């Protein structure tokens, strides 16, 4: 009861008012090992289904994927066990006792239904080739499937063997066939909340900004906290302050981790444990639209790479662990990452490169010019919850304008931003010139891996980099067709070398990812995809 707000509550109690139960949780008998975990997040949830934020939170509570990826980069069973001998034929068997929250058994048919649902209603190309408006064909993934008689197992055979096929499945949430089939568009909000995870949806209180998941006992995954209580904050200041005041036990920050300012505020506190791991994400990257005329010129991109002030970005946006990134934007902590040459700020080199392409900066001019036209581009940034991305834009603009390249900043809210920078939300009509991106560990690993989904102009969902080079497309298909890890490693090196020479995107800095947890608890697991909030943590966590 050290919490100051509780002191106020006690005062109210003396006045004859009963305290509210949520704050009373700590008073429980210490021998009673039942506990709830309170998680803070800076998110807005609309009480609507198909909401991205809800999907993100439910991913570590109510929904299960077939498999998960642990912190060592190994795949582990989640909903199913898995087996493959040749990386072409995969056998998934649903773990005994897995049930949907309405009591129905989970079967291999649900897995098949989910893959088909993706084809019919999502961006899937599992069992059929997909042709987009431009005529690009995405070939199907699977040649065939076979469900066992007891409906517990499914054998999926790929068209071409792919050693990294499992990476595509770590966030694929399996959907209940018995609820969706035949009434896909009429599923009610309540039905859409049914999952098969160790927690089930309990309540969403819009006035309290809380989302509660309660333990689903009928699940083979045995988790310890009886409830996960998410409190949603509107800004980071309130979020970190809540952590400091102990009104929450941990913070959910997808992919980026705790901010520099947040760490500064929390690190003096002994009651908070901070875990830092080398970042597997790219917090901020300047990504060119590589198919526009200006950025087809490698000299311009290269000049920009030499004009950016990496030392300054480290100082502004990260802590003492920050490093200057390499020319390939892939974080060096990624598996199969290779060391490419390091980026550096050399203005004379940048000038030389621009001169080679005919851009001249005369004395007294502010910007480089070619044919009397200033060298300029529009930089699109996302208006995120704590105005960080506009600040990245500010830093890039300031550096480049100091050097002599005019940058017009355009700040858009996140939906408008996606409509300009991603294939899915723009219907394959990406219109930005350059944008500030944040690459998540999951995104970097998806598809062929190594950030290819962000670069590949033909990717059905992302594709912000708009790289349309046949050489690059070939590397991607080779990555996808790698039968052995050795083969994959060779192609992975090739793709990073491609980034090194063609610079489709420039990471501004590379940093550690930090997580926080109340020191009352111990035994957390850090997952490569979801961070500290994951099923392993809920299984292993202990209250001291």
């Amino acid at each position, binding site marked *: 009861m050290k919490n100051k707000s509780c002191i106020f509550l006690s005062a109210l109690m003396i006045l004859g008012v009963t305290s509210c139960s949520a704050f009373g949780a700590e008073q429980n008998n210490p021998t009673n090992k039942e506990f709830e975990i309170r998680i803070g997040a800076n998110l807005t949830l609309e009480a609507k289904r198909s909401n991205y934020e809800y999907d993100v939170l439910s991913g570590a509570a109510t929904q299960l994927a077939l498999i998960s990826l642990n912190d060592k980069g190994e795949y582990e069973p989640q909903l199913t066990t898995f087996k493959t001998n040749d990386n072409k034929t995969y056998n998934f068997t649903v773990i005994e006792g897995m049930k949907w929250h309405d009591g129905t058994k989970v079967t291999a048919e649900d897995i098949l239904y989910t893959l088909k649902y993706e084809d019919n209603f999502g961006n899937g190309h599992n069992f059929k080739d997909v042709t987009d408006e431009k005529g690009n064909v995405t070939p199907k993934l699977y040649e065939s499937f076979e469900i066992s008689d007891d409906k517990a197992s499914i054998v999926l055979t790929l068209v071409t063997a792919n050693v990294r096929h499992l990476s595509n499945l770590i966030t694929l949430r399996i959907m209940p066939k018995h609820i969706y089939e035949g009434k896909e568009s009429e599923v009610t909000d309540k039905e859409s909340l049914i999952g098969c995870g160790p927690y089930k949806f309990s309540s969403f209180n819009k006035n309290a900004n809380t989302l509660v998941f309660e333990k689903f006992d009928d699940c083979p995954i045995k988790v310890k906290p009886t409830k996960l209580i998410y409190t949603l904050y509107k800004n980071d200041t309130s979020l970190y302050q809540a952590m400091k005041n102990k009104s929450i036990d941990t913070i959910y920050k997808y992919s980026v981790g705790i901010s520099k*300012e947040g760490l500064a*505020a929390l690190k003096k506190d002994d009651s908070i444990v901070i875990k830092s791991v080398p970042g597997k994400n790219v917090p901020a990257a300047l990504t060119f639209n590589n198919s526009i005329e200006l950025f087809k010129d490698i000299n311009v991109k290269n000049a920009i790479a030499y004009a950016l002030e990496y030392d300054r970005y480290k100082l502004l946006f990260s802590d003492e662990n920050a490093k200057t990134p390499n020319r390939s934007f892939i974080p060096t902590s990624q598996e199969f990452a290779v060391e490419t040459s390091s980026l550096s700020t050399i203005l004379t080199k940048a000038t030389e490169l621009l001169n080679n392409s005919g851009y001249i900066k005369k004395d007294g001019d502010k910007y480089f010019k070619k044919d009397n036209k200033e060298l300029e581009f529009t930089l699109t940034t996302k208006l995120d919850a704590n105005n960080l991305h506009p600040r990245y834009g500010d830093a890039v603009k300031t550096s480049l304008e100091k050097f002599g390249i005019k940058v017009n900043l355009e700040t858009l809210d996140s939906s408008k931003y996606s409509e300009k920078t991603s294939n899915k939300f723009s219907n394959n009509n990406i219109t930005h010139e350059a944008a500030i991106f944040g690459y998540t560990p999951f995104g970097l690993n998806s598809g062929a891996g190594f950030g290819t989904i962000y670069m590949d102009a033909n990717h059905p969902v992302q594709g912000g980099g708009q790289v349309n080079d046949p050489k690059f497309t070939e590397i991607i298909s080779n990555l996808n067709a790698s039968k052995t890890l050795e083969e994959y490693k060779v192609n992975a090196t090739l793709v990073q070398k491609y980034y090194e020479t063609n610079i489709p995107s420039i990471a501004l800095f590379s940093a550690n990812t930090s997580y926080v947890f109340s020191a009352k608890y111990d035994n957390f697991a850090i997952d490569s995809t979801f961070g500290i909030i994951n099923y392993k943590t809920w299984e292993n966590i202990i209250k001291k």
Partner: protein
Amino acid sequence: MRKANTFTYYLGIIILLMFALWAIFPSSFAPYELKESFTPWQGMSMSHIFGTNDMGYDIFTEIVYATRDTLIISISSAFLTMLLAILFANLSLVKKFGIGLIFDTLINVLLNIPKLIAILVLISFLPRTRINIILLISFFSFASEAKILKNKIINIANQTFIEQNILYGFNRTYIALHSYLPNLKNTLVVRLLSVLSKTIMMESTLSFLGMGDLYYPSWGTMINFAYQRGAFLMNAYYYLLAPGFMIMLFCISFYFVSERFEKGS
């Protein structure tokens, strides 16, 4: 009491002059160049009197440079507001062809529309340029001023000396210049000053809600950034408070100056 008034009057004038100079010659008053970067989140010191922000920019420098943007928008909208108010007040008093009735009704209609909501809705349709912001602020602010002016004019008209002038046969222009104007002068000054504080308040609220330029921030935008970027977490209260203090200082100086004219208004 009069002495105190004189003191605050000159204090107000001095502060306003300072702001005017900041706006016109920012580079002479700002200790550093705009966008010159230092170690972020430095506390208050001799070299950075309000410290530095998340981007390592000197906060005082940013405040000085923000003055121009803040002032251009609030002063232009205040003058436009007063012009519209004078126009509408006069037109609403025209007795011919029901013109007065039309304009009087228009004033009352505009009074009913919640200002902030209307401006925000319209600005979301239009390009967020300075001119548009100025036009919108003035358009939704002038009605209350027009109403005040109209009442004042009626008030003056009912006074005996005007009737005398009419009886003496002076023409309208003469009456307007020699009878109405001297009596209205103080009211106009007081209203203008009060409108100035209101427009700066409106400008900073719009900026705080993210309607302003994020790269060249005005005072309101600075407060928005301070809050969102964690000034509180870094104990950088000055980043949060200094721009707010400038808004207060600006408004209060207008009040000090206007007090002197209030008596005669």
